[in-house]
């Protein structure tokens, strides 16, 4: 009889399938245009909010930097965020004005910035009565990253909400909290733009979460 490729652990649960790096060609599978492949009718990509989405439409950009200070040019990022009223839209629908989920990538060309077009998420109240400041959950996949890294992006113009956010508060080092705060910058008449570099290692290393 065929043996299954999963095994129970000591407490009789199955073991989670092991993670492996997404490798240098992750874009073939999850970001076809970036790999130079023809796109299918519907692709998951980086515009979470159309013009018609309610809330403040913004652009969020950044780079991914390694422990040598060099650009990581082959990463894939996934965003998961609430809408402008603080609710997650779980039904992904490209016809909807807003989707909570999106993907973006860094590339071999140019300044290798990733970018999302979205709306600023609302604050989120938790069952314990505390409120999380507006944030975007980010997952980072890349060659040399054995299991995806999970982080959050917060906004520098939400000072009070950030100060009260229980998740930011769970980070012991106040200086490390700053690694999650995107800075608003001048966007010359375009959408308001927020910028955050993700630093994988070393000085200014981004806080990554386990949950």
């Amino acid at each position, binding site marked *: 009889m065929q043996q299954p490729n999963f095994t129970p652990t000591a407490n009789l649960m199955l073991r989670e399938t*092991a993670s492996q790096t*997404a490798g240098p060609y992750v874009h073939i599978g999850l970001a076809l245009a970036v790999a130079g492949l023809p796109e299918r009718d519907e692709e998951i990509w980086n515009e979470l909010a159309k013009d018609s989405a309610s809330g403040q439409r913004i652009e969020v950009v950044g780079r991914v930097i390694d422990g040598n200070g060099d650009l990581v040019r082959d990463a894939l990022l996934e965003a998961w965020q609430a809408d402008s009223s603080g609710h997650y839209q779980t039904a992904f629908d490209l016809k909807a004005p807003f989707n909570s989920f999106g993907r973006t990538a860094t590339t071999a060309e140019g300044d290798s910035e990733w970018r999302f077009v979205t709306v600023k998420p609302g604050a989120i109240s938790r069952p314990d009565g505390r409120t999380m400041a507006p944030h975007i959950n980010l997952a980072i996949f890349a060659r040399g990253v054995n299991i995806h890294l999970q982080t959050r992006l917060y906004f520098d113009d939400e000072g009070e909400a950030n100060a009260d956010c229980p998740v930011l508060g769970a980070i012991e080092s106040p200086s490390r909290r700053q690694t999650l705060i995107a800075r608003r910058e001048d966007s010359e008449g375009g959408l308001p733009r927020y910028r955050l570099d993700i630093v994988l290692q070393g000085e200014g290393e981004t806080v990554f979460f386990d*949950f």
Partner: protein
Amino acid sequence: MTLRRRFVERDRQSHPPAYAPGYKTTVPRSPSQALVSLQTPSVSELTGPDFQKLRMGPHDNDLLLNFRDGTAPGLPVGERVIMFGRVIDQFGKPVPHTLVEMWQANAGGRYRHKKDSYLAPLDPNFGGVGRCLTDEDGWYHFRTIKPGPYPWPNGINTWRPAHIHVSVMGPAISTRLITQMYFEGDPLIPICPIVQTLNDKEAVGTMIGRLDMARSRPMDALAYRFDLVVRGELQTYFENQ
């Protein structure tokens, strides 16, 4: 009473560590600080996208038919295989309607990617990407060709075993997972630095696709079964305070 969803804590021993110097690229790309544990998972982590409205093309899960560059109409070169399995959670519960995506090299071990310059040729009839949603009972399947092994710059003479990259979402971003399926019996598996990032033989076993003769198609294609296990979901009711 409120229903609260929770996931079984991710056992980091079942996954490769971030820093695994045998796989050299991890050296500058692994965080040196510890992960910050979120003691109280919130709606941000306990929810995730549902892709049932994402419109799939008729051949999105059929890599024999979903790419033609127009120069040589026909089928891709290579061993025809069916890759199939179930997405289940750690309690054995099927995960229905979840998105499974995959990508791979062609039979010669070459990826259709601007950056891949390996000397094996591209196949005009092979793109190397597929996706599908699991059915009611968590089953998925793809039709493809078996990818070739390929060399890569790590050691002086380092080769990847034949593998298919697999991505699964599961019920929430907490269950998100990207892995690789290897083919049972491949002698390159135990000497691959990327496989070896795992310290645990049983964990390696979770990534091996098994030959399934019963589901192979006579005179057509061999079948490999690859079940994906995502974190277990616990649902508990609690009194509001």
